[in-house]
């Protein structure tokens, strides 16, 4: 009951602090902003989505008048570009990068010249679409000149057909954008980032709470109460952990509403609980080492930068040597759990190192706190 009384007092402190409430809104802004950016960048890099949203029809490709009505002209139109015909290649070249994204011409000796503005945001898609059109044109011409009929040309151009058979279509997972880029970025980076964000804040609140009490000289009074050091510390961190987990769960709900379904929330809850203990443990250790809030802020910022590096950089870098270890990272576990409807037992086993390490950091922090008694008079 004593722990609960202390926890209640700490909860009231947190809830009455306008700055913490502001930080929750900042997090909401980050979640929505990251989701929006993922949507925009997915559309910008996917030819099918660019066509769906009608963006390709706003990309102007200049074609020499000599090619008007030619099969190449048709192939480029089939790629949904807005075709602009030019009769002066020098003038068209000047427009490349401003009015035109690419220009296609033909030289007197029959060579097809393609120039694409490399600095355009949609360059990868433009280049891919123009390549497809030119290759198709080139192949058709080659096959026609070899005397093949249309049916043979069709077979050679399409030697493989792909039929997609939907399984479990009655139970389709809702996804905001059915694009591989979107799914990879959302589940592979944004979901672990968003779910861990409250714990980055938690370590800040811990230092603020412990060092703040020491600066205000109220820690002596707290430690003189008939509570053990561990009880004081657990009473202090309990509401912080609770609010952090609550925020993570709220972001899971928000992501679900945004049609980014998060699977295995119960297993995620337990992993986040232990990761939270680890972060809070780091916060307690830092609080013991520093003398003021200012020092605590600098130290926690640096600690969190290193934590970000360790947790998130491996998601973007191929390191075959460390692949075995990387599978145990909490971020990798979160990616796999959040994106897979049914997980095997191996993923539960993979979470054991995270649980042991986090619990170890936390117990070390509590032990260190008991030893130091938080005040150095």
């Amino acid at each position, binding site marked *: 009951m004593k722990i609960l009384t202390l926890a209640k007092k700490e909860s009231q402190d947190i809830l009455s602090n306008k*700055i913490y409430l*502001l930080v929750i809104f900042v997090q909401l802004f980050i979640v929505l902003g990251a989701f929006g950016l993922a949507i925009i960048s997915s559309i910008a890099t996917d030819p099918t989505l660019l066509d769906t949203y009608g963006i390709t029809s706003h990309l102007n490709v200049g074609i020499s008048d000599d090619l008007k009505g030619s099969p190449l002209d048709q192939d480029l139109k089939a790629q949904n570009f807005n075709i602009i015909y030019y009769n002066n290649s020098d003038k068209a070249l000047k427009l*490349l*990068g401003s009015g035109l994204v690419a220009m296609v011409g033909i030289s007197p000796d029959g*060579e097809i010249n*393609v*120039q*694409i503005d*490399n*600095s*355009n*945001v949609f*360059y*990868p898609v433009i*280049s891919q679409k123009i390549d497809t059109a030119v290759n198709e044109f*080139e*192949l058709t011409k*080659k*096959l026609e*000149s*070899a005397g*093949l009929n249309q049916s*043979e040309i069709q*077979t*050679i151009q*399409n*030697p*493989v*057909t*792909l039929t997609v*058979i939907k*399984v*479990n279509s009655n*139970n389709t*997972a809702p996804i905001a954008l*059915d694009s*591989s*880029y979107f*799914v*990879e970025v959302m*589940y*592979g*980076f944004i979901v672990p980032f968003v779910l861990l964000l409250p714990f980055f804040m938690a370590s800040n609140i811990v230092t*603020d709470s412990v060092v703040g009490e020491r600066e205000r000289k109220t820690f002596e009074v707290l430690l003189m109460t008939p509570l053990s050091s561990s009880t004081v510390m657990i009473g202090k961190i309990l509401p912080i952990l609770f609010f952090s987990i609550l925020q993570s769960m709220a972001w899971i709900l928000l992501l679900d509403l945004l049609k*980014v379904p998060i699977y295995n929330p119960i297993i995620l809850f337990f992993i986040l609980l232990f990761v939270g203990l680890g972060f809070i443990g780091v916060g307690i250790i830092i609080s013991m080492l520093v003398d*003021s*809030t*200012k*020092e605590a802020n600098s130290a926690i910022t*640096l600690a969190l930068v*290193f934590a970000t*590096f360790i947790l998130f950089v491996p*998601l*973007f870098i191929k390191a075959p040597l460390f692949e075995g270890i990387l599978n145990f990272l909490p971020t*990798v576990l979160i990616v*796999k759990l959040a*994106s*897979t*409807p*049914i997980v095997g037992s191996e993923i539960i086993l993979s979470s054991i190192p995270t649980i042991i390490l986090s619990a170890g950091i936390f117990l070390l922090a509590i032990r260190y706190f008991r030893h130091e008694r938080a005040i150095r008079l």
Partner: protein
Amino acid sequence: MKFITIAEWEFKETLKSKKFLIIFCLQISMLFLMIFVFNAFAVNIQSDKGVSITPSLSGFASLDIDDQGHLFTKYINPSLINVQSSDYNNSLQNLNNGEITGFVQVPSDSLNSIRNIDTINVKLYLDYNDPKRSVIRDEVNSTVNIMATAISNSWINSLIPQNTTQIAVNQQSTGQSLQIQILTNAMLAILLFLPLFFFGNMIIDSVVGEKERKTGEILMAMPISPSQIILGKILAVEGVIAIQIAFWMIILFIMGFKFADPILIYILVIITALPILGVTTIISAYSKNYKEAGIGITISYIGVVGVLIIPALTYLSIKSLASNISPMTMVMRIFSGETIPFWQYFIPIVFIFLVTILTYWISIKLFERDDIFFGPRPRLIRLFLELIRFKKNVK
């Protein structure tokens, strides 16, 4: 020139502090970490596979393949997908159990189809209950395209005589790729401007610390004007920033990064610190304590970062003159080896000069007010009206 004495004293105190030196070294180690990430991206960007800014998780999604002729298997890229060979019955069971996301079935007579110039029908069974279905679908699609191109080419080589006239295609790209610009110019510029945001705490300590330690009264009672005190404190931090930037540039140079005009870049970066320190001083002068100042600076720095980065990134796609308002744009242009007309250097310099004057004036005005220094502190709206002389200042 009393502010120089204050600056000298603050500068020496900072350099003497062991904690400052530890933080300084940790910041340098952070630079090494960032160079490591930077190089990893650079290797990626220079590879034949092109730019990938998506996570590179192995085994992100699972795919079973029934491909006895190994036609499909040899072309699939297993970097993101966990691929395993299986048969129809097992794979469908795995698919229904949610153990895999997709299953590809290549007809067993596919090699005969190639020999007879027949179309091969590949089937992809896709679990629509799995959100990763698009990852599998796109990977299978791209593998099918590679496979189709290879089969087409082999048929063409066997059907068409070698002396058939071919259409020559000459493809060129103009301008530097956006991704390469972002990586080589923008990221390097960001790396150089980053230390400017590390020293907000020093100003907070120097200004808010006087309030918290109750030494402000003594400082105000000294025969020195508030403007001299503010200038002295800012100058000391500017000196530390200048040392830090020099260190970073030397490290970047040693690590193989090349700068077209290092002295000009150095000057542009360190003068950018002046308005940033001005903004920090305004917040520190107004804040009651470290915590309030810390939050204020975090929020205002988001705005400052926006003012620096947004014009620079905009310049990559739209070469507008207005983008040069950010010194980061100018540094980025120097990195890219662009020929910059001399007068254009004045755009960011004038902007820096004006913001510096304005922010220093506001911070001096705030610092010399007793109600802000000792309380009770007026509200921000009232303060603003007083600053623009709309309301009479009551000291």
